[in-house]
């Protein structure tokens, strides 16, 4: 065998070997997940959402009578002195309890984007800046916010007292309503109004999405699935990998409910929002917090408050929102600065320096195709709520 024949055979062997190698992986089997990937997918699956943890600060959290009263109060505009604003004015059930606006609008212009209440019973913190530590303490704030309900606790309690149905429902759960002028009694009744609203809000939960069905197929070892397109699979791969989304959007609600500075630009006409750095001071000073006299918690150690982080590290940081509410909740970010998912993804891809504090995110280096795939995956998270229809309408409608 001369030299050139040897080279010829060598080339043939290499070519055949290469073809065999390629054909085994062609078309690329994007559906194969490693054991480590499967473990991550399981943590994101809605089936991993444990039972709703109790709210020890709210003795009526799981009382169906309180949920009924809270449901009525949530949709009732009489809690506002103008008779025009209810919780449901901004938290519109058909928009996953948001309002589609950059910033909420009650009787005036509120300061931030209206957050969804879907699934937030799992969150130790409420609001973008966590300035409340329970759903019931949160429910009280808009009532006394000059830009939202524009009222006060005296008005709210008298509104409940003046309505026979509310009064009967309230007194069956909490006992007698206070006499007018009883300041201490009014505070207690006001807290109880919040607790009833929270008992209703706890029922609002996300349902399984196409993503969850896909994970179920992966977990049960289905080889051939038709639930996800190649782009959606690639997007999911980016979500748990290169795009590092699970650093914050982790767990079955796709949020860690923690506070992160991601360098979002300030709202036009405003200085940059301090976010959690200010929110942590407010929650510690809130008389309706876990340690306060209106809390039903037997254990006053209130670990979340006790060990909350403050200072520069949480300057300009905001609570990670659940991605299970992406559908119908644009515009995005704490002041609704971004209108499309593409804008949001472009922002994280760039990870610019933050105007205040430190942007924790790092540039991702995703190309246009990858960004499109990631967006395709995020759209698979859309799903109807898991909550009975009757809770999504005003009572009796």
């Amino acid at each position, binding site marked *: 065998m001369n030299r050139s024949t040897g080279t010829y055979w060598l080339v043939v062997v290499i070519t055949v070997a290469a073809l065999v190698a390629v054909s085994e992986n062609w078309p690329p089997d994007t559906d194969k997940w490693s054991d480590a990937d499967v473990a991550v997918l399981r*943590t994101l699956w809605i089936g991993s959402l444990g039972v709703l943890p109790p709210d020890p600060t709210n003795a009526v959290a799981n009382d169906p009578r309180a949920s009924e009263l809270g449901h009525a109060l949530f949709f009732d505009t009489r809690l506002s002195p103008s008779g025009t604003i209810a919780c449901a004015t901004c938290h519109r059930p058909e928009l996953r309890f948001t309002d589609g606006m950059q910033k909420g609008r009650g009787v005036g212009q509120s300061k931030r984007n209206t957050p969804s209440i879907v699934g937030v019973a799992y969150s130790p913190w409420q609001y973008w800046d966590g300035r409340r530590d329970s759903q019931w303490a949160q429910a009280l704030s808009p009532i006394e916010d000059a830009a939202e309900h524009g009222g006060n606790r005296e008005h709210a309690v008298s509104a409940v007292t003046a309505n026979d149905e509310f009064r009967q429902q309230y007194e069956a759960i909490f006992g007698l309503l206070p006499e007018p002028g009883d300041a201490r009694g009014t505070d207690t009744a006001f807290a109880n109004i919040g607790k009833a609203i929270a008992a209703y809000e706890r029922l609002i939960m996300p349902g399984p999405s196409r993503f969850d069905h896909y994970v179920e197929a992966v977990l049960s070892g289905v080889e051939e699935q038709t639930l996800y397109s190649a782009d959606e699979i690639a997007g999911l791969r980016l979500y748990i990998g290169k795009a590092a989304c699970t*650093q914050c959007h*982790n767990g079955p609600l796709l949020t860690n409910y923690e506070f992160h500075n991601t360098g979002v630009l300030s709202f036009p006409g*405003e200085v940059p929002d301090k976010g959690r750095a200010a929110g942590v001071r407010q929650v510690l000073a809130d008389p309706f917090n876990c340690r306060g006299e209106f809390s039903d918690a037997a254990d006053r150690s209130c670990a979340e408050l*006790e*060990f909350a982080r403050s200072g520069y590290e949480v300057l300009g940081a905001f609570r990670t929102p659940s991605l299970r509410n992406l559908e119908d909740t644009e515009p995005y970010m704490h002041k609704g600065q971004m209108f499309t998912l593409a804008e949001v993804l472009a922002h994280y891809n760039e990870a610019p320096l933050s105007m205040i504090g*430190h942007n924790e995110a790092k540039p991702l280096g995703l190309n246009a195709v990858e960004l499109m795939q990631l967006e395709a995956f995020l759209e698979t998270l859309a799903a109807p709520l898991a909550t009975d229809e009757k809770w999504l309408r005003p009572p009796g409608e």
Partner: protein
Amino acid sequence: MTRLLASSFAVLLLLATQAPQYAQAHGGVVEEEDLCVIKVNYLRGHFKIYQPLIDGHNEYCEDLPNATETVFVMEYLHDSLGEAAVDFRIIRDVTGKGRFARWEDVAEIDDLEAVTILYREPTVDPDVLTVIHDFKEEGDFIGIVTANVDGDQKIYRAVFPFEVGYTGLGYWPFFILLLLAIQLQYFFMSGRFKRWRENRAAAAVVALLLLCAPISGALADEWVSSRGVYTVSFESSLEPIEINQIHAWILHITSDGEPVTGASLAGSGGMPAHDHGMPTRPRVTAELGNGHYRLEGMRFHMGGDWEVSIEIKANGRTDTVVMTLAL
């Protein structure tokens, strides 16, 4: 003709090389290690100016390209600024001193209010000072930051002349160079500012962490402190440890096989790969005897490699252990 071109180029070059020196000489705001620093007497702040409507996240140190909505940010490099009542004033530059204006020149102005275009009342901002102003016209301005430290006992000032908008051909080389400098600064600053703070605050801790990493990495459930004084293991109230759940640890500390009692412990934790700490501020809340200590307030908010560092002081011996865990 060629000679004319060459000489005008030389003039431009001269202008260009001179320009950065001007920038260095702007009163109370100076560039240090790629960081724009405002000096309010000995109190220092990280100074940044934004024109978000036009320039997004672009940072400026003092001179501004456009007459538009402008956000001034001062992050404190000295905690006293967060406790002081700080006011912020911008005046039209009527001193005639331009870039070399000082407080003495400002003090000579008869009617300060008449030339003031923005005044923010003294306010205590514990986190950061932010001021917004919509510049309606281009021109020369002077910013004055006044800090009242310890009540009214001490008044510290920073005076920084700056320019809004660039007019005339003579400024173009300077403008281009400034843009270049800003781009470079943007490029370099991504890690610098953080490192700068950390270096000042926690150089020792970082060094310790680095020293300990190989030692602690080698062992599975027991960690030896950096100088080998203590051996630490822990038991979690949450088993296995899950993310986003607040929980407590019981630490067990021994030295030469003997339990360590009466130790004072200080803990912190974080993810070295992501440059951030824990979402909580955990603390040792009780000594349980026989070398056991309760560490409360533990919470990890994402999967990945975490480090929990505990400084142990007992019987006059101080050492730090770094425990690593993968979630």
